[in-house]
């Protein structure tokens, strides 16, 4: 071996090690999400809320092994000269052990890349659950998870990352959309499905005038912290190795998230009078979402500005559900859909030179062409995911597998769906809500 060969072998090992570590980091995000959502939820259905995330780890990991990875990352099934919607479903079937164990993918052992991407599929499905807390049968959630994963996550991941229509370069007939770690494939995708499911599931009893106060604020902060930690694997791991881009993505992830945390609490400080820990945690997640597609393509300075805009923008966007009258319980739309769009469009506005084959970003003098492509890719994912989720949801609802019975919702899904309780003392509800903007109402005292 020449010295260059030795160096290349060492670099390949380093890259593989980093992606193994990143995979474990990304896995941790889903239990983190369970705490984040669990804390935001009411005490009577916190087990159900966390189970929706944990069940996604169980179910989606297996589906990803068997056919998900192959359909997403197998050779593109082109439509004539245009890149297609899906990969070769049989190419990397999980049953082909001898073949796959010997294969490479982007310079990594294929199994390493398959495991890394598996964690993305898991959390994308879990993200949707925040829109339908407290009111959906667990079996309905499981069936939805498998169906939406198959019909929306896999094709959109293929279109964005697997050589399909959205991400393929314009030379090959694609849109050339830049999505480094999943602004479109993960957050816009999950956010659009969340809007559809919130509509299909309908409002929780009493929403928005009843009490839907987060039941455990420290859980929310714990979950946000675990998400933040795991997100370094999500973003910096998406380089597929260790180089200058990994470093940039890592640093941008930190500074954008920090700025978004500040952006959110500044807005609520001005709007509501006090900065809250729920706001700081939510702002951090909004920043992580927005920097996800763009972390490799921005200077740290523009990442900070993106964070501020995303934190402040999402803090305002979470109020929209009260105007639009849909009970997106834990704000998947306001945080993931809106944050994903902001980060995706930001690339078209402020990307570094030579980011895209489509042309330069607006600030680099490339006009709005790149912005238009970014918007088109995000729009395709939004509509696709929304329609798929709406159809699956309506089918489940029509056969009675979706919305839980009112008495079970009232008593809490934990007891009825899981036969479990999160806490061994009974705490009666001690608050009433007044919705977003209404005046507080207090019954007569004794």
């Amino acid at each position, binding site marked *: 071996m020449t010295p260059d060969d030795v160096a290349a072998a060492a670099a390949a090992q380093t890259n593989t090690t980093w992606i193994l570590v990143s995979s474990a980091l990304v896995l941790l995000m889903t239990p983190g999400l369970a705490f984040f959502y669990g804390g935001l939820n009411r005490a009577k259905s916190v087990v159900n809320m966390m189970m929706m995330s944990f069940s996604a780890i169980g179910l989606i990991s297996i589906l990803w092994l068997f056919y998900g990875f192959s359909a997403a990352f197998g050779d593109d099934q082109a439509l004539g000269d245009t890149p297609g919607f899906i990969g070769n479903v049989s190419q990397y079937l999980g049953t082909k052990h001898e073949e796959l164990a010997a294969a490479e993918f982007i310079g990594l052992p294929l199994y390493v890349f398959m495991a890394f991407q598996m964690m993305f599929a898991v959390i994308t499905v879990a993200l949707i659950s925040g829109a339908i807390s407290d009111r959906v049968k667990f079996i309905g959630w499981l069936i939805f998870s498998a169906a939406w994963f198959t019909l929306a996550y896999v094709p959109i991941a293929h279109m964005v990352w697997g050589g399909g229509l959205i991400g393929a370069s314009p030379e090959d007939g694609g849109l050339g959309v830049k999505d480094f770690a999943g602004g479109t494939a993960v957050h816009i995708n999950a956010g659009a499905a969340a809007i559809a499911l919130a509509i299909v599931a309908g409002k929780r009893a009493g929403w*928005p005038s009843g009490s839907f106060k987060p039941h455990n604020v420290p859980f929310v902060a714990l979950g946000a912290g675990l998400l933040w930690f795991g997100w370094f694997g999500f973003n910096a791991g998406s380089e597929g190795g260790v180089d200058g881009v990994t470093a940039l993505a890592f640093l941008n992830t930190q500074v954008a998230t920090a700025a978004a945390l500040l952006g959110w609490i500044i807005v609520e400080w001005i709007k509501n009078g006090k900065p809250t820990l729920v706001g700081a945690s939510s702002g951090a997640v909004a920043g992580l979402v927005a920097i996800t597609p763009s972390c490799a393509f921005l200077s740290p300075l523009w990442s900070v500005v993106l964070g501020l805009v995303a934190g402040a923008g999402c803090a305002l966007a979470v109020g929209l559900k*009260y105007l639009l009258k849909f009970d997106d319980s834990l704000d998947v739309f*306001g945080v993931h859909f809106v944050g994903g769009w902001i980060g995706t469009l930001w690339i078209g506005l402020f990307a570094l030179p030579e980011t895209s084959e489509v042309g330069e970003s607006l600030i680099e003098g490339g006009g709005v062409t790149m912005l238009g492509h970014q918007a088109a890719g995000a729009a395709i994912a939004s509509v696709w995911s929304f329609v798929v989720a709406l159809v699956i949801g309506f089918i489940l609802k029509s056969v009675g597998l979706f919305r839980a019975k009112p008495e079970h919702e009232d008593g809490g899904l934990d007891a009825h769906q899981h036969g479990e309780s999160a806490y061994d003392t009974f705490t009666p509800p*001690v*608050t*009433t809500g*007044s919705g977003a903007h209404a005046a507080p*109402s207090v019954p007569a005292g004794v």
Partner: protein
Amino acid sequence: MKLVTAVIKPHQLEAVKEALHAMGVSGMTVSEVQGYGRQKGHTEVYRGAEYTVEFLPKIRIDVLIDEIDVDKIVDAVVNAARTGKIGDGKVWVTAVDEVVRVRTGERGLDAL
């Protein structure tokens, strides 16, 4: 015999306990309760949605006393519990027909 019940702010418990001790009251029962009166609770805002927390944490103290002492004990509790701010709580007195000490079977004033 009388039962004196006080619902007070949690951080006034120590002062009330000291005052009762100084009056020679030899025991008390304390429980954590929630409630509101004129104070009406407070509001909290999460992600822009405002919620009214109506039931605030309070401490309830129950003491059994000889009715001869009732006025000065009520005064002692009230003085110790008072901060002057809204939400200081209430004290009330109930007549008690009988008291039995479980261990010895003593009854009436002997059981206090």
